[in-house]
């Protein structure tokens, strides 16, 4: 490992990393942990709410917990979490943009987020649109169960890759 060269990589990454924003975050004693805390709070809300809803999609407690009612509680929580996690994630990215851009765990995390968002779009565009019809069904339709299982796997994957960034 070479410890004496400047940040290397595409210009925009170097510019981002050497920007005042990146520099103040690295130098700040408490701002950086505050951003980290907000990022963690964001993805705790996001992934926690989504995983709970996924379990319902798969069929856990299906007749007891109407899917549409549960969605009214959990989906805004997930959206709030997303709104906290994304900007704070971007701030953390600026502190080490050049290293993160070639970190395999970070790249895998971004890829999994894209797949997980596509999965959400698929749900809301297809089986989710008819949620009222199966909201109290003992066994949710196959589409809902598939989306729920995929979402579970994808978001756990996002979480795992996020944590592994520091190790690869």
């Amino acid at each position, binding site marked *: 490992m070479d*410890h004496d060269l400047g940040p290397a990589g595409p210009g925009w990454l170097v510019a981002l990393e050497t920007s005042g924003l990146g520099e103040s975050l690295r130098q700040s004693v408490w701002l*950086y942990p505050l951003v980290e805390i907000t990022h963690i709070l964001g993805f705790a809300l996001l992934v926690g709410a989504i995983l709970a809803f996924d379990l319902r999609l798969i069929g856990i407690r299906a007749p007891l917990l109407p899917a549409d009612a549960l969605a009214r509680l959990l989906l805004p929580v997930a959206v709030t979490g997303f709104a906290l996690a994304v900007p704070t994630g971007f701030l953390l990215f600026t502190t080490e943009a050049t*290293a993160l851009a070639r970190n395999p765990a970070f790249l895998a995390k971004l890829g999994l987020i894209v797949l997980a968002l596509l999965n959400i779009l698929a749900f809301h565009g297809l089986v989710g649109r008819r949620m009222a019809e199966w909201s109290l069904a003992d066994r949710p339709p196959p589409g809902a169960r598939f989306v729920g299982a995929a979402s579970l796997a994808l978001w756990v994957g996002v979480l795992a890759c996020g944590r592994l*960034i520091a190790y*690869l």
Partner: protein
Amino acid sequence: MTHARPLALAALLSASLAWPAAAHHGWGGYESGQEMTLTGTVQQIAFNNPHAMLNLQAGGKVWHVVLAPPSRMSTRGLPADSIKPGQTVTVVGYPAKSDPAELRAERITAADKTVELR
């Protein structure tokens, strides 16, 4: 010589930026059975998040020493500017398995003050 300070600062800054934070978390990447004590001269220090680091000239080579987050360093008595290039410090720690010149410090003695980093 009016430009010397900004230039030195820029050089230090760019060097500090090159230190990847990856692979510094946790202790699995370090030889925990091989405790080392290094006394030497600080060449560069980056008091940065996610953790402070310094380059230490000791034992005929330059060691890359990983310290604690700036907040913890400050809380335990070594705030920013308490360690400067040219200063002599002693670190006790473990060498990295993957990098023969990297040491993760357990404690540092600087300016007559010993601070536990874990």
